[in-house]
């Protein structure tokens, strides 16, 4: 009998032998129980290897990863509804200025370029119906108009917000504006991606919601 197959067993298992070598290996296996047993063992091993399940780490590694990313962990939007608002005159001017400046930046974003995402209807309460659908450039302009209306309304009553409110609004709008910029950048790569369109719509809704609420509070003071 010829020598055992050795490495050729693996090549046989993986289908890597040429015709001649394959025929020779087959002839050897027919008469060599030792090589047949080895081949059977390797076949079982291959099946087990293919069936291995992936397991997550025992502890969550995300916190450690996020701390190593530039800027550290992602900031969270302050839950606006949970804040208690007191209004005083000196705090108002700063609030109005900050909000108008930030939302003007958003208006620029909203009117930029010829983006025509097909959004589902946005859900910001109190926003004109035409402003909540962004299926066209007209929709974007309507959205922009809604923001301008809120800015004007807020500016007229801007002397009624306290410092804590101003800070909360600023922080929320910074985060939301960042999300809008990120969504716009992503949409530039995948303009027809519905997930991204919804993501942008959600960010815009959040911005309108913040502006609408702070304007309502200023008006109620």
């Amino acid at each position, binding site marked *: 009998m010829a020598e055992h197959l050795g490495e050729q067993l693996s090549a046989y298992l993986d289908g890597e032998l040429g015709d001649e070598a394959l025929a020779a290996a087959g002839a050897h296996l027919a008469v060599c129980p030792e090589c047949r047993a080895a081949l059977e063992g390797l076949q079982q091993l291959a099946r087990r290897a293919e069936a291995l399940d992936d397991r997550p780490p025992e502890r969550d590694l995300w916190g450690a990863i996020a701390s*190593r990313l530039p800027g550290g962990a*992602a900031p969270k939007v302050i839950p606006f509804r949970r804040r208690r608002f007191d209004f005083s005159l000196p705090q108002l001017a700063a609030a109005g200025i900050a909000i108008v400046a930030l939302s003007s930046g958003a208006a620029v974003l909203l009117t930029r370029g010829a983006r025509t995402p097909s959004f589902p209807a946005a859900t910001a309460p109190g926003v004109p119906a035409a402003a909540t659908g962004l299926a066209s450039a007209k929709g974007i302009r309507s959205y922009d108009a809604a923001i301008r209306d809120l800015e004007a309304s807020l500016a007229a009553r801007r002397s009624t917000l306290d410092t804590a409110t101003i800070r909360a609004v600023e922080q929320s709008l910074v985060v939301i504006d960042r999300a809008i910029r990120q969504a716009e950048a992503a949409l530039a790569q995948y303009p027809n991606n519905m997930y991204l369109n919804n993501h942008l719509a959600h960010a815009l809704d959040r911005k309108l919601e913040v502006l609408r609420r702070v304007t309502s509070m200023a008006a109620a003071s």
Partner: protein
Amino acid sequence: MPKGPVASAESEAADVALAAAGDQQAFERLYRLHVARVHSLARRMTGFEGDPDELTQDVFVRAWERLGTYRGEAAFGTWLHRLAVNVILNWRRGAAAERRWIEDGVDTDLLVGGRIGRAESMDLERAMARLPTGARQVFVLHDVEGFKHEEIAAMMGVTAGTSKAQLHRARMLLRSRLER
């Protein structure tokens, strides 16, 4: 050959694009989707020699840094997986300089004090961890992850023939240990 949780191609592509634009929350979703596969790869490739948690962190930090180079030519999971292999192999090359006492080719049963008795059967994961480094890496890449010998050779800086020889060696060692 994808394993683990599956996201829709559209939502994953969106998260990749958002993450490339700086959205860490999108990147966290990608992390949650792929961490099991990356961690399992790190654990299997390093055996007793490395910390798979630390390597997994390194992989995702590197992925964040290099997201801008991802062109969508392959699935994100495939891109991430190849990046993970490179990170792990590079770690191994660096670690090798510090751990010369672990020579490739040494049966690591000897290094762990022969804790595995002959009568004790080992499961495949544990048996893989005790393979010599080169044989273990080739076995994981070929038989578990599905890479071809030419790909493995390129990633590891060896010839395809060496990869084949290491694979056969790994298989025979595993067969022997699993049949004890």
